């Protein structure tokens, strides 16, 4: 796989030629406004002195900034002869920007990703540095991380990434003061959850905040419901490439439960145009307009950044409730095990890149994550939890992940390219544009 094509004798232009001749082919045909996509992506392959790292630019990026600053001053950086330049890409544009950059001469040397399906295309195109031997031969990397998390980002049993952010299980957050005011307890069963919804609606409070315009917050509901109803095997089958797996009764039942919630007003009547990424859903939740929020564990650091008083005083958390009659273990978790740094196989300074990855295993890096409210996936995390700004939350998360019999990777990340059409179908289901039966039928058609 790589630079030349051997397609049935046909003459083809090489990728480089296409990119060189006009990288933004599609854009220029009619979209002058989008040209920012193709430009300004940094140094990339240029001189060996500076390498570029792409990172998802949200509130948690401070840790990577501190890490890069520390690394650039370190002896390890001097030894490898260079520095790292961090490029923060705004969240919603991260994946397309990475994809276009990776196919171009200004590709990053090191990049943030979600492991698994999210990097499969890069691996298939020979763009990833296989880190298996590097990790196995280096005690700092080999023993630095929880083995299950290190393995969760694997492809075909090979390591391609180093964990670089906290654990990201999806958690049921709730507003403690709203719950106290209405004498409510976080639900442990689905019936309790429906009961709470009814009480909250009587008090004119939307039960759940939901950033429906981003779609992935909607996906979290399906992920948990399918897991609780049918266990992790249901999605595993789909992830393994069997689109018929969508026909599992658990998927239909989950879609029906979603429809009931939506019709019942559990998410209010405006959620399809509320976004998480732009801060809409967190604000609805923090200002008490909604009482609960099903969200990844980063919700804590997001709220700490935007509404610190709310995060410190009123934010409560609980596991997703049990669904009566379901076969899934209530301790199962969905979400992202963590994020990873992967290395571009064409980086001019491999040693520098690997030296930089090692910083993610350092205690200083883990401390920074802890300070932000995240739980690192490093092997020393357990000892650090007491120094977290909210030790209770940190321990809750850590135990949740440690005790989970199964940790299902976010469906969109696990499915790679099929994630987008799946998003479209989920958006239609939540918006009431398709019925649960139509949703299942459409998902069965999602094939490569």
């Amino acid at each position, binding site marked *: 796989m790589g630079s030349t*094509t051997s397609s049935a004798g*046909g003459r083809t232009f090489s*990728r480089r030629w296409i990119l060189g001749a006009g990288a933004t*082919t599609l854009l220029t045909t009619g*979209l002058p406004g989008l040209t920012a*996509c193709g430009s300004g992506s940094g140094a990339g392959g240029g001189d060996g002195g500076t390498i570029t790292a792409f990172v998802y630019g949200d509130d948690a990026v401070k840790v990577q900034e501190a890490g890069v600053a520390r690394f650039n001053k370190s002896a390890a950086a001097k030894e490898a002869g260079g520095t790292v330049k961090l490029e923060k890409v705004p969240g919603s544009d991260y994946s*397309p920007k990475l994809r276009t950059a990776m196919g171009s001469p200004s590709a990053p040397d090191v990049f943030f990703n979600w492991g698994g399906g999210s990097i499969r295309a890069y691996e298939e195109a020979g763009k990833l540095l296989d880190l298996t031997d590097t990790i196995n031969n280096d005690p700092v990397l080999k023993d630095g991380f929880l083995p299950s998390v290190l393995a969760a980002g694997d492809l075909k049993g090979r390591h391609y990434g180093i964990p670089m952010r906290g654990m990201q299980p999806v958690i049921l957050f709730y507003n403690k003061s709203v719950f106290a005011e209405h004498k409510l307890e976080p639900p442990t069963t689905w019936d309790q959850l429906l009961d709470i919804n009814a009480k909250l609606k009587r008090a004119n409070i939307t039960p759940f905040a939901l950033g429906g315009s981003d779609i992935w917050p909607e996906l979290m509901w399906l992920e948990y419901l399918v897991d609780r109803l049918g266990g992790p095997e249901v999605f595993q089958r789909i992830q393994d490439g069997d689109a018929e797996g969508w026909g599992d009764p658990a998927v239909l039942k989950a879609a029906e439960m979603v429809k009931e919630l939506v019709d019942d007003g559990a998410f209010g009547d*405006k959620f399809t145009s509320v976004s998480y990424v732009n801060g809409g859903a967190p604000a609805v939740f923090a200002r008490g307009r909604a009482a609960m929020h099903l969200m990844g564990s980063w919700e804590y650091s997001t709220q700490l950044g935007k509404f610190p008083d709310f995060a410190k005083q009123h934010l409560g958390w609980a596991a997703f409730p049990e669904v009566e009659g379901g076969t899934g273990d209530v301790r199962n978790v969905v979400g992202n095990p963590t994020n990873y740094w992967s290395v571009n196989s064409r980086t001019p300074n491999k040693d520098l890149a690997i030296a930089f990855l090692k910083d993610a295993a350092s205690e200083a890096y883990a401390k920074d994550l802890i300070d932000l409210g995240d739980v690192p996936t490093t092997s020393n995390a357990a000892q650090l939890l007491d120094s977290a700004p909210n030790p209770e939350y940190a321990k809750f998360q850590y135990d949740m992940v440690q005790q989970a019999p199964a940790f299902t990777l976010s469906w969109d990340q696990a499915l790679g390219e099929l994630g987008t059409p799946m998003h479209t179908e989920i958006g239609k289901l939540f918006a009431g*544009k398709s019925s649960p039966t139509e949703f299942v039928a459409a998902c069965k058609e999602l094939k490569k």
Partner: protein
Amino acid sequence: MSTRTRVGRPHAVWALPGVLFFAFFAVVPMALAFYLSFTTWDGLSDPRPVGLANWQKLLDDPRMTQSLWLTILLTAASWAFQTVVALLLGVWAAGPQRNRAVLSAIFFVPLLLSSTAVALLFYALLDPNFGIIQKDILGSSSGAFLAIVFVGGWQFIPFHTLIYQGGARQIPQVLYQAAAIDGAGRYRQFFSITLPQLRNTVITSTVLIVVGSLTYFETVLILTKGGPGTDTAILPYLMYEAGFKSYDFGYASAIASFLVLAATGLSLLLVRLSGFGAMRSTREGM
């Protein structure tokens, strides 16, 4: 230098910068997109030829039907909205009064903003929970569609107003003076003199609106992301999704090529039907 060369037409070399610019930034990318539409390409490895597969998919894709219909609807609605408002504003702004000049200058401000800035501005204003209206406009299919038409109009009406203002100022005053003597009132003058005199301007503006609406994109991306569901996913957005979300650049290029063909065809048709090319002067006999 002889007098001969001076009176003749400018040398072809003069056109070179323009031709080169057009070739590099329009013709070459379009040719590449056309080529890519016959391949499958994920943006990472090399494109592989697949014949007509993407074009076949274009015909079979159920989302394409919805998208095409939405695009036509958007084009028609944008044309109606922008033409009516811009025409009235332009004619009004063409008047000699000082206050009109001042107000026109203010009306042109949106023209200075980028589409992205305009879309972000309206996205904040239309926020269902913290915006100024606090109604879920973008959450309903018709609301989202009308919001796109409105924001597009807000942004581009100033430009078309400028065109109409220029056009209206070209209309000789004698026509109005003669009409006034004949007893024609304000409305009669507008319909019998201003409108017919602006015929060429209307066609120019129409072609620009139609082609602009067919390639309308940023506002949709920022305001609705094609939602709710897929109810505002017009063709350029579908192309973006195929290319930059699903990384199916072959199919995205097929949609892009279709758009280029449709836009070119439609503008040619408009020019032909209106007889723009052979159009006679609106001031014949004066």
